[in-house]
Structures are given as C-alpha cells and as structure tokens.
C-alpha cells in the first residue's frame, strides 16, 4: 500500500546581523533608511582590485547562533564564491559558504516536543538593492549598494515541519533566540529577517516529492503561517485530482490571503561554487569555540523556567520576559524592590518605563502610599472627619487633597479616597 502523503515543510531563513561594520569592509552595516550609496567603499562596490577581509564579530555571532541551535561547528571552514548575474550583485558573485559552513546538524524543539532538525547555519554577504523609479519620464532601475556586503546568516532546516502553525512557532522561537543573543533585530519590516518556506506533500522526509514550492516575500510570521496553509491546501486539491503541482516560486498576497505564482524554475542554477581565494580557510580552535559557548546567554526557554522556579512567576509572564532582553534585564535589576509577579505584570503591560529607574515609578499606585501619612492627615483634620461622619460626605474631597499634598502628588486620588472612606467608616 502506498504511504499516505504528509505536509512537508522546510524553512530557509536569512537574518542580517547588527554588527557595526559590514561583512568584508569597514562601512556601517546599519543601512535601513540611509541615503542611497552613501555607505559604500571599493570593497562593497566590488571595484577592481578591492579585496574582502572578513569581520570577526560576524563570524563569532554566526557560531554563537549555531551553538544556540545545538549545531556542530566545523573546525575548518571556508568562504566560497557563488556566481550569478544580477545588477545588485557588485562582483558577479556573492561570498557565501558552500561545502564547509560554520555550523551544521543542529536542532530546535517545539513546545509539543517535536524536534526540528537544522541542516546548516552559514554566513554570507547581503546584496545591494534595486529601486525602480521614473527619472525624467523614463522608467529606470537604480542600484543602491548601501546593503551590499551586510553580514547575512542563513539558517536552513530539514523538511521536518508539518503545518503553518508549526512553522510559525518555530520562527517565533528562532527569533526569540536570535534576539536574546543580541545579534540581530529580526525586524521583518526592515528586512533584517526573511523567510522562505519550501512546501510539498511527500511520503516522508526521506522520500520527498518530485517537486517543491518555494514561497518568497513573506513579511510576518502570521503571513508565513497562512501562506503555508493556503499552499498546502492548494497542492492537496491538485494531488487529489491526480495532478502534480509544478516546481515554482510563489509570492503571498496578504489582501487575498493566497499564494500567487512568481517564477518557474526549470533548471537548477549553476553557481560554479569554488573556495574564495581572497580569504584563507578559517581554522577554529576548540578553545575559541569553548569561549563562545561560555559567552552564550541563557536561552529564552531556560530563562523562563528559572523565573518560574525562582520567583514563582506565571509561565506566560516568565516566557514574555525571557524572550525580550530589555524587559528581562529590567526585571532582574529591580526584582528585589517589588513583588516579582507585580513587577512582571507592570513590565509586560508597559506600566513602567524601562529607560527610568523603578523607584520613582513605584510611588504612583495608592496602595504604595504610606498609611501613616493618611492617619496623620486624619488626625490633623479632626473637624473635617467629624463633618464627614455627621453625613457631610463631600468633605472627603478636601481630605483627599490634603493627602495628595502630603505625598507630593505621588498617589492615585481615587485609591486615596477609597482608603479614606475605609478609615472613616
């Protein structure tokens, strides 16, 4: 009997690293929104005679990503040239990694316990960008090389995912890890994280379909989920009718919530990969790899678990803090000054400004008001209290005013009123 077909999804994720300088030259790597071609030099313009010198920080970070994804690290790695023609590719080839990527054979576990295998994590350079404009009434394509040479990490999974939901969870987990490492903003809007799912219905991961559909230009996890689910359904219908979907690249139209054909790949591209002769092979020592391992921060899941056991936080709150390095660090800094769960709530619900110290911000709620002050006000205004008790309840406004004056305005008048009422009843 034929094995039943399974939804089979693999992901290719590109992440721009937020290093100070580009991958192979000293130009700034932060290119978003900058005036075109203002952050270039002979190297990233691919001018004759210019040579690439690899950015050590980018290499460190790539290996840290690999380690965080439980990968093995290649002790000897090379950069390779990937040849193709496109106007935004300055040299006619992209410096990437082919045979010996920095990291390979990793894994990431979903909440369900399912393990998604990571094929490889490698480092390459980003390309320039084409801008299609009208200049003097003529349609032209312009090239902006600001992005050319920005370090780009490619993470490739095995086709272990089975649904849009799983893909979305995987991507969120990956993003949280990358952010906790502090190596990328993973901002999909700015293109610093790009997703390309490969989708098919296959008998198994070891017996893949003869075709696969690649989806490009997805700029949110939600779109990724819905695009994958849409295309699985589309393919399923074809297969049910005895047709085989064609191998192609499709785009996603969010307004119609459907994938649309973009480009049919008839032949495999021949990139003529060969080792980049301008960069000697990189030999990584065990000590170097160990040192990077020591530098790895705790990953979000581990941190969350710790927050639950140590401070008794609710798991959702712990997870929300753990995946956001800024919130987490604020929590850790101030946890001794408030009840942990309250502090967590305030941070998650954005009730505190993370750029300011906690002390000033804690005075706000009335229950933080020293009751002694309220007692003192009541004592000093015995007449007013007597009037209140005699039924002239509007006098409470005066008493609230006196309390607010005594605390320098740092209290919630509504809550002060409640306490006053309590005390006088």
């Amino acid at each position, binding site marked *: 009997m034929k094995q039943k077909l399974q939804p089979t999804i693999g992901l290719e994720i590109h992440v721009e690293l937020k290093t100070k300088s580009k991958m192979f030259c000293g130009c700034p790597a932060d290119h978003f929104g900058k005036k075109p071609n203002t952050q270039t030099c*002979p190297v990233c313009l*691919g*001018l*004759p*005679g*210019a*040579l*690439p*010198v*690899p950015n050590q920080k980018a290499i460190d970070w790539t290996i840290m990503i690999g380690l965080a994804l439980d990968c093995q690290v290649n002790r000897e790695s090379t950069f390779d*040239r990937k*040849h193709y*023609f496109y*106007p935004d590719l*300055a*040299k*006619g*080839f992209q410096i990437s990694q082919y045979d010996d990527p920095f990291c390979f054979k990793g894994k990431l576990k979903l909440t369900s316990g399912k393990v998604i295998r990571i094929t490889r994590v490698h480092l390459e350079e980003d390309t320039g960008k084409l801008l299609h404009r009208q200049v003097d009434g003529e349609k032209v394509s312009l*090239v902006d090389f600001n992005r050319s040479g920005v370090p780009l990490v490619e993470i490739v999974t095995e086709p272990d995912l089975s649904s849009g939901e799983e893909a979305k969870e995987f991507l969120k987990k990956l993003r949280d890890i990358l952010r906790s490492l502090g190596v990328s903003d993973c901002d999909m809007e700015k293109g610093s994280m790009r997703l390309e799912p490969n989708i098919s219905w296959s008998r198994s991961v070891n017996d893949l379909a003869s075709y696969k559909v690649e989806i490009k230009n997805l700029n949110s996890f939600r779109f990724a989920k819905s695009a994958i689910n849409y295309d699985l359904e589309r393919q399923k219908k074809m297969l049910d009718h005895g047709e085989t979907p064609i191998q192609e690249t499709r785009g996603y139209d969010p307004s119609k919530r459907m994938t649309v054909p973009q480009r049919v790949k008839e032949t*495999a591209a*021949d*990139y*003529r*990969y*060969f080792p980049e*002769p*301008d*960069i*000697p092979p990189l030999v990584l020592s065990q000590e170097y790899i160990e040192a990077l391992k020591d530098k790895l921060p705790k990953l979000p899941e581990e941190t969350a678990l710790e927050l639950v056991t140590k401070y008794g936080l609710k798991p959702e709150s712990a997870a929300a803090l753990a995946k956001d390095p800024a919130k987490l660090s604020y929590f850790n800094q101030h946890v001794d000054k408030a009840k942990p769960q309250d502090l967590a709530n305030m941070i998650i619900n954005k009730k505190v400004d993370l750029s300011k110290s906690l002390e000033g911000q804690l005075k706000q709620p009335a229950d933080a008001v020293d009751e002694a002050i309220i007692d003192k006000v009541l004592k000093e205004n015995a007449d007013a209290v007597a009037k209140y008790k005699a039924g002239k309840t509007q006098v409470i406004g005066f008493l609230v005013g006196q309390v607010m004056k005594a605390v320098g305005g740092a209290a919630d008048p509504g809550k002060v009123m409640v306490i006053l009422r309590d005390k006088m009843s």
Partner: protein
Amino acid sequence: MDVTQLTLKSALEGLNEGKFSSAELTQNYLDRIKRYNPKYHAFVSVNPEAMSEAKEADELRKKGKKLPLLGIPVGPKDNFLYQGMKATAASNLLDNYTPQYDSTVVKKLKAAGAVVIGKTNQDAWGHGSSGEHTDYGITHNPYAYDRVTGGSSSGSGTAVAGDMCLMGTGSDTGGSNRQPGSYCNVVGIKPTYGRVSRYGVIAMASSTDSMGPLTKTVYDAAKFLSVMAGRDEKDATTADLPVPQYHLNLETEKKFTLGLIKEYFEGLDKKFTKVIETAVKKLEAKGHKIKQLSIPAVKYAYPMYCLTVFAEIASNLSRFDGIRYGYDRDRFGEEAKRRIMIGTHSASSGYADQYYNQAMVGRKMLTYQFKQALETVDAFIGPVFPFPPFKIGEKETDPLKMYLSDVLTVPANLTGQPAMSVPIDFVDGMPNGLQVICKHFDEQTMFQIASQVEQEYQMYKIRPKLI
C-alpha cells in the same frame, strides 16, 4: 653621463650627492618615453604630474628628508591602481576607468618617495606571455624590435630595459614578471604569495597573483621589494612576517645546495640547455653544490594552472558585466573571452569534479612535492622559458603554443614559492634568464643566489640600442 642608464643604487647616490635632481632624472626619462614609446608601447599612459612629483621629491631631499626611493621614477604596471590616473589593465573595456583609490603597492611607493612616471603596458588583464594581447599597442623587445618581450608585464620589461624608467612593477600570475625579465635582460621577481599586498591591483587570478619588481639589478630588486612587501590589513592573504632589508644582506660567500629539477629540462630548446649548463658549471666552480632532482607533478602543472587559474579569471572578470565601467563586454579581447569560457566550463557543475576539483587536488600534490624537494636543497635553478623570444605574430594563430611559454614558470605560482629571473648569457643575440626558486618567504636566499649569478655575468652592463 646618461642618467637614464643608472641603477637604483647609483641613481640614489647621484641624487644624494647633488649630481643631478629628481626633476632632471625624470625629465630625461620623459624625453625617452616621448621619443621611443610611440614605437615600443612600453607605457599605456604617462603621468602628467610626474614632473611636479619629482620637484616635490627634490624639495624633500633639500629639507634633509631620507626615504628609500626618494625621487626615483617608477612605472607601475597598468593594473596597479593609482588614484586619479587611468587604470585599464590594457583592456579597452576599462578605457574610461579612473580609480578612486591607490593600490597598497603604489601607496607604499609614494610613501617611499618614488615618482610615478606612467603606467606600463601589459597583456590585457594579464592574459598572455608575449605582450601582444594589449589594446594599447604591442610592446616591442628593446633587443630586437620584431620580437616579443615576454608577458604579461611586457611594458615594465621594455621600459626598464629601454631606460624609460628606473624600475617597474609587475603582477606575476603564471610567470608575468619572470618572463619579460628573461626576454628583456632585466631582473624579474615573483615574491612568495602573501609577501606583497594584492589590494588595489586589478585581479587576474586571486590565488596566484604575486606583485613584484622588475629592475636592472638584483640589488635594485631587493631594495624595491623591501619597500613593497609586508602585511596589509586590506589583503587577508598577506603574511604577518617581518620584512627584511633584503638589499643590505646580499653579499655573501655562503655556499648553497642548488637543485636541478629534471622535468624542467625536458623538451627544452638545446641552445637554452647549453647556457643553463654553463651557468650551473659557473656556480659549481664557485663552490656551490648541485643536486639532480625529480618532481613528477611538474608535468601536470600547466593543466592544473589552466583549470584553476582560468576559473578564477572567469570569476574575477564577472564584475565587468556591462552595467558599470562604461563599456559593454564585447570589449573583452579574444584571449579574455577564451579564458572566461574555459574557466567557466572548468568550474561548472557536472564538470568541476573532472576539471577544477581534480586540478585542486593536483595542486596540493605539486605543492607537497615542491616542499619535500626543497627540504634537500636551498633553491632550485633552471630555465625561465622553454624557447627564445619569438617573432611578434608568430604564435598568434595557435594559442596553445603561447600557453607553452608558461610551462616552467607556473609551478611556483601554484605552490606559492618565491621565484625570479636573473639575466645570464644571451642566446642568438637575445637575452635569457636563469630562474631561481626558493622556500616560502625565503626571498633573502633567492637574492643571495641571484646576486652571485649576477657577479659572474654582469649582464646589466649590456644596454640595448633602441630604434
């Protein structure tokens, strides 16, 4: 006294003693360029600022400034970028290209006080061993106008031999500095790969390109290399090793063990064999030991070179895609097109395993065999070229014949070892060099051996008569 015939050593003495100025020296060279360049095509372009650079050097000298090449007119090969001066690599495709930055070598020359007199001609992109494959006029041999100069640093060869500048630079990818050295009676150096920065030199093949000097004497080359060499942050393949003052340590009575590689003499022109044998005897008589060796992989060096180097050529030239630099790719010459096609094929999927990858394995083997053999000797000596300079146009129809010129020079490029050509006896009235190959980064020994050869022959005393 004709100042243009001076060596670096004597020119510096003259300048320091105030016998003449850099302006005079430069003017004399410019006069000769004006007179002979239209016929010999040694230069692609002349620096309009050469005289002001010379005057500036004279000013510095007056102020007591001491720099190793102060006021010395030098001709960088056209593929070495000099900001503001056209750099074509002798291809029409770059006829309109003015670089925005200096190559590291030119920067070092300038820092050492040298005057850039002009950019020398070459086989376009470095593709050729004759000087014929240029879009700026074929370079002619100063010793016989109808003969080739050797290439691809043809212009530097003719300019130095023909007294149109004092020293030239060249890039040696498969023999490009040693070959014009041999055919033009000058010293041509290919330093160890990684000894001199490649930054800012229009690349031919990134894994073998080696930048070095072409000069009248061994001393000049040694001093020039001391200026050019060293670690460069902008070239990740440069070695972080100290640079000796090679020229201060040339004269030695040291006796060396010199290896003759059997395979270098197979199929060698008989007259060439004879002059090399004479050189070997002279060295033996001086007390050096001679040892016969065999390096079997040498036989396959040329195919290895073709398959790996041409793949890199195709890759490096792909940036000239017709979008930038002003001209379309139809401006690539026959030879560049041929190499792009061979190189593309060699690295293509389905063929890479039998060509490029196979050649890479062979290259490792050749490097290993060279290293092993160099454990037993201080250097190899042998011929540079398998045949004497041919007539211009003679091999035009059969590119394979021209490729054969490289058979004896490419091995050192594939292995990365330093090698040079030092002039010995003429053959049929044409110059000829002896090749010296040493261990990685042992240029000092190479210069010491060459220096002893030079003492025997003193070929720099022979000057060509230009027409």
